[in-house]
């Protein structure tokens, strides 16, 4: 084999590192968690809300519901805010302002999740407790913090989608007498819709998977919330709270929780990839 061919092989092997990591992660998480799901029964594991791992009850129904509610709450706050920033930066602001604001907003992504959680505990939780009632540590607190945390994802992907819309679309619309806003709403946004949907889906993925900030502000109670002021425990917090001391079946149950989370994330990633590719 000549040297060039050999070098190419080496690079090919290096390039397989990411996909093989993904495969190994999948194998290990399933290997550890699947036995418990088979033992408990998929239906009982997913739909039962009775989680008492030391007594042999492994039902994560309440956590699945909590994860979904917290994520939806985060989207209600994060999507309009993020989309507004993206539209302003891509369509209404001057080139100079955009060059200043875009990296500034992307700084939000660099702030560690524990810092978000910490500020949530210090500022947001007392605010909710004093003005809205309940313990403060709540679904609402988690949703607000996550809504802020997904902003960088939503903003930067939406901006890319909006700027990818050709200028002739805008010029054509303006030439027909439409206002700038009509142009954005009726022409640019529909043209960029697949990119914006991708941004929202990836933001959802971030929200579902976030752990540390949620543990700190959500209150971690083990039941289906009846109001947004109730404390909740998500799938991610369940893993992180108990992994430190779990053993035997209990530990398997945490990996099984991980499987459910992993599948949710993969479905979101898949749909994002498919939507992007269709474009």
């Amino acid at each position, binding site marked *: 084999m000549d*040297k*060039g061919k050999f070098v190419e092989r080496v690079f090919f092997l*290096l390039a397989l590192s990411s996909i093989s990591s993904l495969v190994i992660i999948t194998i290990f998480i399933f290997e550890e968690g699947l036995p418990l799901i088979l033992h408990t029964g998929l239906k009982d594991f997913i739909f039962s809300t009775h989680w008492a791992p030391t007594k042999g009850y492994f039902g994560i129904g309440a956590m699945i519901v909590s994860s979904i509610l917290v994520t939806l709450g985060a989207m209600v706050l994060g999507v309009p805010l*993020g989309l507004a920033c993206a539209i302003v930066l891509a369509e209404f602001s001057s080139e100079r302002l955009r060059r200043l604001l875009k990296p500034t907003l992307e700084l939000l992504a660099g*702030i560690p999740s*524990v*810092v978000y959680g910490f500020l949530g505990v210090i500022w947001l939780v007392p605010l909710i407790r004093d003005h809205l009632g309940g313990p403060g540590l709540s679904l609402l607190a988690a949703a607000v913090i996550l809504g802020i945390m997904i902003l960088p994802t939503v903003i930067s992907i939406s901006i890319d989608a909006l700027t990818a819309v050709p200028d002739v679309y805008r010029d054509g619309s303006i030439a027909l007498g439409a*206002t700038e*806003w009509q142009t954005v709403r009726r022409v640019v946004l529909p043209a960029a819709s697949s990119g914006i949907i991708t941004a929202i889906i990836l933001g959802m993925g971030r929200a579902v998977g976030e752990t540390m900030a949620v543990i700190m502000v959500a209150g971690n109670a083990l039941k289906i919330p009846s109001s947004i002021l109730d404390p909740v425990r998500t799938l991610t917090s369940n893993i992180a709270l108990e992994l430190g001391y779990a053993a035997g079946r209990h530990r398997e149950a945490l990996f099984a929780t991980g499987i459910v989370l992993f599948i949710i994330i993969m479905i979101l990633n898949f749909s994002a990839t498919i939507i992007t590719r269709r474009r």
Partner: protein
Amino acid sequence: MARRLHPRLTQAFAKTLLWALTGLTLLILIFIIVNISIKGLPQVTLSFLSQDPTDMGRHGGIFSTIVSTVYITLLAIALASPLGVGTAIYLTEYTREGWATRIIRFGAECLAGVPSIILGLFGFVLFVMKLGFGWSILSGGLTLAIMILPIIIRTAEEAIKAVPQDYRQVCYSLGMSQWQTITRIVLPSALPGITTGIMLSVGRSLGETAVLLFTAGAALRAPTSLFDSGRTMAVHFYILAREGISMPNAYGTAAILMVSILLINLAAYSLMQRLLRRYS
């Protein structure tokens, strides 16, 4: 029947609303940065940085956690950089778009979406338990390397793609081999972009908690070997804040973390901008 609003009026209304929401977002960002800085930076003295924590972090500084953070981050970068840059070289220099590149890109994209708690679970079962590395710098560094791999691949690929095709053609016309072209011309030209990816990865590593809590552990002593457990700054901050051990020390640690991450990200960003401007 309600009269339709004049389009100009609707536009004024919509624009005001959108600008207000953008302003709100900026205010949130400013609030976070200012709040942590004002409460935290006064705690940061030379002795805070140079002394080990005592009494679970209630007193003393954060020196040992800085040491653990540096070791784990360096290990992760050392492992992930060759893999990531190698992947980027393969994708840009050796193949056309096809099933192989699609699988590799798909792997990197999915890996980027895997939440850190899943990576923590994985590192815990493989490195800590199965391979017997225990809660250690090694387990933490290995797991973190997987987490930052997609960042390095993406930025390195972007940087290598930005190197003009003419450079390569000149090399070949001078009779250089592909290997020579890559090592002497393409990589040096793309170096600022590759550095950007590495800096962004350092930023990610500094702030990571969920992965390291379950792979590197939380020992407060400074690690002396790869197999020692080590508590990073982010994990230390989390424990201080969550268990209410010391608010001043928590704020101080948070301020150092946040300021260093923001500075690193800012430097990385301007480096990439300069590279892109040079070649466009």
